[in-house]
């Protein structure tokens, strides 16, 4: 029991510690693919350090919502991170139905962040907030049609158990899992505001979703927002990688190796996608998300009928 708690805490620390590195890795790979040298992999850490020491400036019209929002955002994302398995270690929080808590606790982060964006009273933030609310809505079904469909088929409702139940020995199940992971990748792209949906690099407010919501923040507030953004990216990366654990081979070393290799491949994929695609028109995003949902539905249908 104590060992399990310790393992859970270590997993959490890994997520908290390495999430900026993952973001840095994507940026570096992207730079390499576009023929630039790019910033070092450690750049996100430097950014965070810089932000930490800056003065905080709040908008005059802002209220208590802006003060508490970065904190709640960070805490909820961290709590969501404690539900995910790394390697074969049981996460700190794992009980029946935690898949729902996971989805809804990220909903709390989103709720408070949208409010904080509207708190500034600027229409730029308003636009970002409206888009976030809209696109998050269409992203919700994808989550349930990927991880949820695995859950419903296995009859389990805890994230760790769900991943644990994945056995790669039946061909139709392998196809099912692979297509699930494609859907989950599309979800990760949306939720982490990566390229075909959102552009994390541009600074033209009209084209952004997530970045524009935190435009009027600075100092420690921005530090917390950025950090929770990195953690969120890493969380979705773990959701994606965990599909490929052969859980029947239960060695921690193998798990960690798969985890590291998987993260690298995923970073490479994200970087490649960001290199070769351009951002969608805003009005095309709902149909892109519906497309991902459609893949999930089709996948589940086919699996149900071939069994």
């Amino acid at each position, binding site marked *: 029991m104590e060992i399990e708690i310790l393992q859970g805490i270590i997993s959490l620390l890994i997520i908290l510690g390495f999430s900026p590195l993952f973001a840095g890795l994507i940026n570096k790979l992207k730079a390499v693919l576009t023929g630039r040298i790019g910033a070092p992999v450690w750049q996100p850490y430097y950014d965070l350090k810089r932000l930490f020491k800056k003065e905080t400036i709040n908008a005059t019209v802002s209220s208590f919502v802006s003060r508490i929002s970065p904190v709640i955002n960070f805490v909820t994302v961290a709590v969501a991170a404690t539900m995910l398995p790394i390697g074969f270690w049981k996460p700190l929080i794992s009980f029946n139905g935690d898949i729902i808590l996971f989805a809804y606790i990220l909903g709390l982060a989103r709720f408070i962040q949208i409010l904080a964006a509207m708190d500034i009273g600027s229409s730029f933030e308003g636009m970002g907030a409206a888009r976030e609310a809209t696109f998050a809505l269409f992203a919700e079904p994808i989550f349930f049609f990927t991880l949820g469909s695995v859950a419903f088929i296995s009859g389990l409702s805890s994230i760790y158990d769900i991943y644990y139940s994945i056995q790669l020995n039946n061909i139709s199940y392998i196809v099912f899992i692979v297509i699930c992971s494609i859907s989950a990748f599309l979800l990760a792209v949306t939720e982490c505001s990566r390229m075909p949906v959102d552009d994390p690099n541009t600074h033209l407010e009209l084209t952004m979703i997530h970045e524009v919501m935190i435009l009027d923040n600075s100092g420690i507030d921005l530090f917390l927002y950025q950090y929770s953004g990195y953690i969120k990216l890493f969380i979705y990366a773990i959701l994606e990688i965990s599909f490929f654990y052969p859980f029947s081979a239960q060695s921690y070393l193998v798990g960690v190796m798969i985890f590291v290799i998987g993260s690298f491949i995923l970073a490479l994929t994200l970087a490649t996608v960001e290199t070769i695609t351009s951002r969608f028109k805003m009005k095309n995003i709902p*149909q892109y998300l519906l497309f991902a949902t*459609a893949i999930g539905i089709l996948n589940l*249908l086919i699996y149900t*009928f071939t069994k």
Partner: protein
Amino acid sequence: MENVLSILFCLSLFYVSISSRVKGYVTVLQLQGLLLSVIIVIPFIYDFSIFGIILPVTLLVVKVFLIPKYIKKIILDLDIKRMIEPTIQQFTFLLLVIVSMVVIFVVSNILSQRTELNVIPFASGFSAIVIGIYIIMFRKKLIVHVAGFLILENGIFLFGTAVASELPMMIELGILLDVFVVVFLMGIALNNISSTLKGFDVTALGRLKD
């Protein structure tokens, strides 16, 4: 294996329903042609015969090379715009496609309990037929109608392989020829329409009725 290819076929159907460019349609047609020829070739891996291999090869040549090339040529020659001009929102269209697909899968699964058929290719072919019809219904351009018709025809093909693994080859070849002639005729029609009406909308055809 057939199932996996059919799933890819279905994914191509989803892609075609959110694609907003004519080029995307042509790519999907090529992909579907390839998938179909692979699906038909599979039985012959175990039981090789020269005569049986003719159909897949013809299919490959006609569907992957000839027809797409011809369509591309028409697009270039007549200087057709790239957008497909839908009559309803793409989002609604995709929603419609999803709902119909779910219904088709459920229905074909119920059917499969009574008779001997392969559910996944059957349902995929069925959905392709329905989606081909939708494309003809909800798009304005005649060239897209041709693509919709070809998707429908692909659907019939897949449908056929699911119902009986060996349709008489002559019939299939006949269908293929039929399709080719239809596409050719449509091409001529497009040429004529463009020379007389200066537009490629089907709405323009409405003016011809008197």
